[in-house]
């Protein structure tokens, strides 16, 4: 059965890992939203070249495992002279990955606004870019909250993969305890609860945000 003494001992030991996980998730979340919106706008632009570049990027991210992407950023960047610490390499990889999905959501969201809105904007003399920024995106924001939340949840769970490049986040912290005390069941169960609590908080905050945004 569960060794409660181990659990009691592990809880404070996991605190630092939890903090790192939260930091990585927060920074990656902000970066992937920024980059994702930028890429999404490019995907909606009139420039065929920009659209093709974003399309290829999204295609690559979707077509390859995140684990490989993490290794690529961690081991390939130093080859081209960019040296990042484990944690920043991990943040970069997660941000690159999530931004592709955010870009798709932005593209789909703005693209699904009723066509009459674009026509009305054109009729008063707006350019394509103005229509996008002042008319389509503001209307797409609220419907975009649930899919964006899903992407951030996935990203937060994926922070556990950074344990493979020795980022001392929650999963890695748990594995460190396991390697000393060999209590995998207790620790992984505890980790699951930790992640669950983090994700629940995130989705609660997202629902609150959605409800506060005006329904159009």
């Amino acid at each position, binding site marked *: 059965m569960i060794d409660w003494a181990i659990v009691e001992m592990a809880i404070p030991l996991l605190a630092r890992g939890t903090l790192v996980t939260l930091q990585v998730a927060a920074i990656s979340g902000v970066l992937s939203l920024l980059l994702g919106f930028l890429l999404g706008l490019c995907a909606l632009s009139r420039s065929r070249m920009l659209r093709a570049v974003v399309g290829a990027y999204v295609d690559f991210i979707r077509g390859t495992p995140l684990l490989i992407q993490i290794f690529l950023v961690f081991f390939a960047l130093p080859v081209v002279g960019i040296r990042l610490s484990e944690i920043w390499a991990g943040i970069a990889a997660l941000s690159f990955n999530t931004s592709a999905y955010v870009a798709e959501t932005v593209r789909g969201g703005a693209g699904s606004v009723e066509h*009459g809105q674009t026509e009305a*904007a054109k*009729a008063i003399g707006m350019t394509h870019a103005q229509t996008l920024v002042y008319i389509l995106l503001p209307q797409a924001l609220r419907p975009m909250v649930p899919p964006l939340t899903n992407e951030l949840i996935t990203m937060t769970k994926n922070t556990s993969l950074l344990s493979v490049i020795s980022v001392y986040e929650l999963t890695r912290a748990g594995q460190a305890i396991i390697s000393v005390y060999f209590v995998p069941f207790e620790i992984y169960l505890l980790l699951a609860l930790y992640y669950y609590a983090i994700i629940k908080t995130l989705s609660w905050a997202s629902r609150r945000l959605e409800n506060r945004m005006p329904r159009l």
Partner: protein
Amino acid sequence: MTGADTSPMLTLQGVSKSFGDKRVLADVNLSVAAGETVSIIGPSGSGKTTLLRTINHLHPPTTGQVILSGQTIGYVNGPNGQLRPASERELARQRQAIGFVFQRFNLFPHLTALQNVSIGLTKVAGMSRAAAHERAAAELRKVFLADHMSKRPQELSGGQQQRVAIARALALDPLIILFDEPTSALDPELVREVLDVIRALAADRKTLMIVTHEMRFAQEVAHRVIFMDEGVIVEQGPPAALFGDPREPRTRKFLSHFNVAR
């Protein structure tokens, strides 16, 4: 023609429009004088709406030209005096001179009535916020919406929404205003308030083109009525003549569906 000026405000030269294999407009020639109000009637699918949309290049014509006050829409004069296709920005600028009122209003739902009218002034015409709000408020008062400026479209009735849309078009001081079945999406009791506003614009000598199914309105507001069918102008003339004594069998057949007061 009833008191219209001599110089044409708008000229359509050989305008045709096809969607794929389907020809919707076939070689339409037309000119509209400054201050003139033109009604366009005809069965659905006759190309009336497409005709309006070719004018502001929401549907650029497949062939032919639209000339507004000497400017060919969608083209600009190149360095050697020849026309070249307008850039996106140049076309956007030309569109400011063409007001367009949609059948389904197409107001921006995330903006208040005032913002719906002022956004074109600030973002497109480059006016300051304060000046734009002042101008937008003035336009909304003209369409009797002084009390509804801070409401969003979904808080307004259809008739009110359409009047906001008219104010939005007017705010940019267009040379011509195009109405695409402006009352078709309205409940019957709301039609009148919109028609009254359009009537006032006609009385104010604005240049108007109105696609409509309101025959009585077309008859009384317009200087000239155009009957379209199958992508061509079948017949046109002063309302009294076109409604009272149509020459073409197709016009007669179409009008026989309505109880138009003679």
